[in-house]
């Protein structure tokens, strides 16, 4: 399957497609507007980058009698956002760590009154300590907010016998930084909460992980899970941004609703507030030291990988873990040492974003690989080819690379498809001719592990349910969410295929915690692979349980199947089939040494970027992009292509354009789409996506997870292409014209054309 090809038998139209195209899909912001009881909500936030809240002054300029007000004192349960550690308050009580923390919640039926009241609340904030805004400043430890300003430190160490080569190894050292990045889902974060007459707190909104939200509400409200219901509404994008933050505003909306006697409360962030306070990609700093034999065999990888975690722990340890595991890349190397740290800074907490730490460390490794290739005077493609993992090799975590290790094949196809060798020669000739532009070609080879890291899936113990309906259909009950990635269609396709029935006999059930079991969060490239596989297994058991109906035989017709389903439905709960995750055989994961099997499957990829840099303006244009990945099996190739193309565009944005600028309080200053620049279609030329399907992954029919994969490769491929074009090393992203201008000016003497 390649870009531009369509095969309708494998690519049924997306189930949610037509309603979204026609604008019929209601999003949270469209709901409840006619409800006369509805209250609108707003948040009063801290302005200092850490300090003590000494008081709250409700100004006299507004009538407070009919305003719903919630502060930390009104929290019935625990004042902490439930995640890995209870360090982040739902509402600031006294101490706080960053600007933009919620301190007071307001709700009122009249939005104008609400806006006015919001301006009347004054927080008495006293600064405490010295804020730190960079990894460097945090680790210098002048002001420690947590011990060593370090949330977590991980070590991955793999040491084998050193090969004596008789020649001194060639060594390079590289330090690079990557910036934050905003997910920029189209739909901002939002929740509506109410207290139903039956005493259940019902919260609905835009989210990836309904059971995370449920757990957070249980802790904050102090209510049993049976009195809380979480419903996902049509979600306009997530990219990780709706993994943890929905828990925060769900608590806020629910607290207001309880305070308002159960009336529905709608809390929707506007774009600027969303940009300022919600979690983004972790900024990173990598220090990489690579050594290779003169023949180009990688001998050692020493990698210090630091992530800026922001002011609370949130998901940073998990992001760090994925970054550490992916740092050494898909290469064979006897001696690998990675040290990862997630550090405290005074920024709002950083969080999940497609790739989850891997794009940061892969960027550093791939940039280092090109520099080492130059030092060895080898072509970067040939150097990589020599070192890519093959089946039977021992990988960085000490695991033996399985038969599904297709790293070399991905590279070979990418080189052939992009005409790599020919284009490289052509670009070098173009550059020698000395025109107004310079061209380059760059490569990244990488892999991405799908599903939760290590023993994560075992701990999650996801469950899925298939239920027969009164209409004679099969309802698929999972807590995984359609967030624009096509999961609803893909999962229905998997179930229909396993049941041997047309897709229209399978219904994707409402994602409502009162109905669906906990099949885990919609993150980590796990939905199709892990949850899909569970559905496939459940389907087999469902068929066994199906009572006989009508005609006999192995392949019952449609009317027979529907009749059987109706019979099964009549049995009630007894007719449902629930499948629970069980860990596959394989080496265990050791969290202390980072050795063992880190992921059930890796997808393998090689990306090639061709760029042209304008020497008048230093603008970089992508001439062509080739993306080859071995993904096991594409359930719906069209959806897979869309995922990959979209991820590449997001990667191009991170590489060239997207630049989170911080204000003096550590909050995003460019909080408008006029100043936070993402690519438009005019910035993207041809993207050639090639899916290789060897069918050996852990998912349905051998599928591997792909959601995050395409975010990993574009930035290093582009950086390597820019380096090839200009002949200068780059050490950070984004490669803006301003950065390239400054970088070239530093090396003016070797680039005489600058002063021509």
């Amino acid at each position: 399957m390649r870009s531009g090809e369509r095969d309708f038998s494998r690519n049924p139209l997306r189930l949610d497609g037509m309603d979204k195209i026609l604008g019929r899909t209601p999003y949270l912001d469209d709901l409840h507007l006619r409800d006369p009881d509805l209250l609108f909500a707003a948040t009063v936030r801290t302005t200092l980058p850490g300090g003590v809240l000494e008081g709250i002054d409700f100004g006299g300029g507004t009538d407070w009698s009919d305003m719903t007000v919630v502060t930390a004192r009104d929290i019935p349960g625990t004042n902490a956002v439930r995640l890995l550690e209870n360090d982040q308050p739902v509402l600031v009580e006294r101490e706080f760590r960053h600007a933009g923390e919620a301190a007071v919640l307001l709700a009122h039926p009249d939005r104008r009154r609400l806006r006015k009241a919001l301006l009347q609340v004054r927080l008495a904030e006293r600064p405490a300590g010295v804020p730190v805004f960079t990894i460097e400043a945090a680790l210098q430890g002048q002001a420690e907010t947590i011990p060593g300003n370090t949330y977590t430190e991980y070590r991955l160490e793999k040491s084998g016998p050193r090969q004596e080569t008789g020649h001194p190894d060639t060594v390079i050292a590289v330090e690079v930084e990557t910036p934050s990045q905003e997910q920029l889902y189209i739909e901002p974060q939002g929740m509506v909460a109410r207290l139903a007459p039956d005493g259940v707190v019902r919260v609905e909104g835009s989210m990836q992980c309904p059971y995370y939200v449920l757990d957070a509400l249980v802790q904050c409200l102090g209510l049993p899970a049976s009195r809380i219901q979480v419903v996902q509404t049509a979600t306009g994008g997530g990219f990780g941004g709706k993994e943890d933050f929905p828990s925060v505003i769900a608590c806020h909306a629910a607290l207001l609703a309880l305070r308002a006697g159960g009336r529905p409360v709608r809390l929707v962030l506007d774009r600027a507030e969303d940009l300022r306070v919600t979690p983004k990609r972790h900024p990173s700093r990598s220090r990489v030291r690579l050594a290779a034999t003169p023949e180009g065999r990688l001998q050692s990888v020493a990698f210090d990988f630091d992530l800026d975690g922001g002011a609370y722990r949130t998901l940073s340890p998990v992001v760090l873990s994925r970054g550490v595991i992916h740092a050494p890349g898909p290469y064979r190397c006897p001696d690998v040492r990675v040290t990862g740290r997630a550090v405290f800074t005074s920024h709002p907490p950083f969080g999940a974003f497609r790739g989850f730490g891997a794009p940061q460390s892969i960027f550093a490794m791939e940039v280092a690989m090109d520099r080492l290739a130059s030092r060895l005077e080898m072509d970067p493609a040939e150097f990589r080819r020599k070192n890519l993992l093959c089946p039977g090799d021992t990988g960085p975590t000490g695991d033996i690379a399985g038969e599904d290790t297709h790293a070399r094949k991905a590279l070979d196809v990418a080189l052939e498809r992009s005409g790599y060798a020919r284009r490289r020669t052509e670009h070098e000739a173009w550059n020698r001719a000395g025109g107004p532009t310079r061209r380059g070609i760059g490569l990244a080879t990488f892999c991405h592990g799908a599903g939760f890291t290590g023993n994560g899936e075992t701990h999650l113990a996801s469950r899925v349910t298939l239920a027969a309906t009164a209409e004679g259909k099969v309802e698929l009950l999972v807590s995984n969410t359609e967030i624009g990635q096509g999961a609803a269609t893909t999962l229905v396709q998997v179930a229909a295929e396993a049941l041997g029935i047309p897709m229209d006999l399978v219904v994707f059930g409402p994602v409502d915690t009162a109905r669906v079991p906990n099949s885990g969060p919609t993150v980590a490239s796990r939905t199709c692979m892990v949850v899909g596989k569970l559905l496939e297994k459940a389907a087999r058991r469902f068929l066994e349980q199906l009572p006989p109906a009508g005609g006999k035989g192995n392949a019952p017709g449609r009317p027979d199947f529907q009749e059987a389903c109706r019979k099964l439905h009549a049995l009630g709960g007894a007719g449902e089939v629930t499948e629970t995750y069980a860990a596959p055989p394989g080496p265990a994961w050791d969290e202390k040494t980072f050795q063992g099997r880190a992921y059930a499957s890796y997808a393998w990829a090689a990306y090639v970027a061709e760029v042209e840099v304008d020497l008048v303006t230093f603008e970089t244009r992508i001439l062509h992009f080739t993306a080859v990945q071995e993904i096991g099996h594409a359930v719906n190739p069209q959806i897979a292509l869309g995922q990959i193309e979209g991820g590449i565009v997001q990667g191009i944005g991170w590489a060239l354009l997207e630049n989170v600028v911080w204000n003096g309080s550590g909050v995003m200053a460019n909080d408008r789409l006029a100043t936070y620049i993402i690519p438009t279609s005019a910035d993207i030329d041809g993207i050639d996506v090639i899916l290789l399907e060897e069918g050996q992954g852990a998912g349905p029919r051998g599928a591997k997870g792909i959601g995050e994969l395409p975010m990993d490769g574009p930035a290093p491929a582009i950086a390597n292409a820019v380096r090839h074009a200009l002949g200068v090393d780059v050490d950070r992203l984004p490669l803006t014209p301003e950065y390239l201008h400054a970088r070239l000016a530093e090396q003016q003497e070797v680039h005489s054309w600058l002063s021509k």
Partner: protein
Amino acid sequence: MTEWRRPRHLREALELLGESPDRYRIVAGGTDVMVERHLHPENAPAGWLDISGLSELRGIARLETGELRVGAMTPLSAVREDAAVRESWPLLAASAAVTGAPAIQNRATLGGNICNASPAADNPPVLLAYGAEIEIASAGGVRRIPYSAFHAGYRRTVLGQGEMVTGLWLKPVPRGSRQYFRKVGTRAAQAITKVGLAAVVPFGPDGTVRGARFGFSSVAETPCLARTTAAALEGRSPLAVPSGEIGALLEQDIAPISDLRSTGAYRRQVAARLVREALQAGHFQ
């Protein structure tokens, strides 16, 4: 409630403005002022004067004198498509085509783009390069001044009380002139300009520069003409000017700053490179 007035005739609009000059903010396409209203509702005026009903301010006419008059209310999509503009003032068609997105160009007007007085606006450099005149009306009458005298400071113009812009006048460009426009934005489309240059470079019979005009955006507090640079190039061969000299000359003409979009150093460097590119080759982008 905010007052909203939508007069049908220019005279009516000018009378309203004349009666209570501080009361109204003029709104045409609304693509700038409505964004501003959303971001800073506290700055909303007491009343809005909606001039979208003034059909006499719409349209493009080529006069017998060879001059072109563009009504202030002409949408940028009409400017972009106009045959006379495309043939004889192609830089204006080019700048209109990169102002916002097509949907914006359908609403946004040439007069509005100027009166919003943003230093980053896309059309002012072209009007400066063409030596345009601006037509200003009030209840008391109509005056025409060089557009280069219109901008008085950061987001300020010389418009007096009760005055509004009604049109722009463009003279024919000398034959054989090199025309150049390039917008360096934050991305390939839908971008706000980081550095923009429109240049008209006429040549004498000996091939030397005669009366060049360089209009810039985003390198000073207003759209601006690089007068010192133009004067220094007078009578010289365009290829004989090294870029180092252009950079030094531009120091007299521009004062770029660092902001959320770019750096002063980058703007200064690229401004000089654009002038050099303009001198070497006609170029539209």
